[in-house]
């Protein structure tokens, strides 16, 4: 499934990184403790988090995460947006919780 499809199905707001929108996603990771995410998330996953610091983009770039979904309507720093645009790593935003988004992604057939 492509990122464009999950944006449409889950009604997410695309904040930045639209160059990476056509990427195929493989699975989901949810976590807010960056060191743990760094150790356990896998490439091409979609990452659900409340963290919005520029370090989030650094970790996504390091692991080659397909997209970041910022949950619970957290505000995202300008620096983070800029870096996401530069690297083409989409940041999507929702007011739902990680759990709610995870359930919806599962229903779309992503496991």
């Amino acid at each position, binding site marked *: 499934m492509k990122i464009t499809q999950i944006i449409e199905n889950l009604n997410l707001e695309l904040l930045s990184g639209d160059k990476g929108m056509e990427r195929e996603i493989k699975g989901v990771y949810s976590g807010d403790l960056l060191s*743990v995410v760094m150790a356990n998330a896998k490439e091409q996953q979609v990452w659900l988090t409340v963290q919005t610091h*520029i*370090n989030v983009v*650094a970790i996504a770039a390091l692991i080659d995460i397909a997209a970041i979904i910022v949950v619970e309507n957290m505000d995202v720093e300008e620096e983070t947006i800029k870096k996401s645009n530069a690297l083409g790593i989409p940041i999507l935003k929702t007011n739902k919780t990680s759990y709610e988004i995870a359930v919806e992604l599962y229903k779309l057939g992503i496991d």
Partner: protein
Amino acid sequence: MKELSLHILDIIQNSIVAKATMINVDISEDIKNNKFSIGIKDNGIGIKKNILNDVLNPFVTTRKTRKVGLGLSLFKATAERCRGKLILNSKENVGTEIYVEMEYNNIDRPPLGSIEDTLISILSGEGNEIDIEYTHNVNGNIFTFDTVEIKKMIDGVEITSPEIILWLKDYIKENIRELY
């Protein structure tokens, strides 16, 4: 990171890579002023002036194997999340000093974690090459520990030897426990 001691371990490892031979670690828990601070100072090669402002940016690293360097950036983000700050000072060929301050009672502040494990994991590997001076202040109760003194005391026995390491671990653990 889950515990502050893991940040401390990470920074000390930076110091070792920077060829430091003396590392000072100061921890202060000041409940009255709601302040938790950590200072780490080394006598390593320091950070070049032209990149000093960039090292807190996760996309700047001297590492050749990957494009991002996260140690200091993660520590800074942890401090700021706890309404604190990270201050970095460094002088080429003199050393580097990192000072972190956080709100003591901030709900996002990670626990300190196991200092004895952190110090022991460094000393068991690098104890012959480096020295660590550790000071831990909890509301005015102070524990200090200096491997220069310890090395004099054990007179010729290597600090990395298993019996010394085991003894040190208990010694540090006991003394920190008595601070509270």
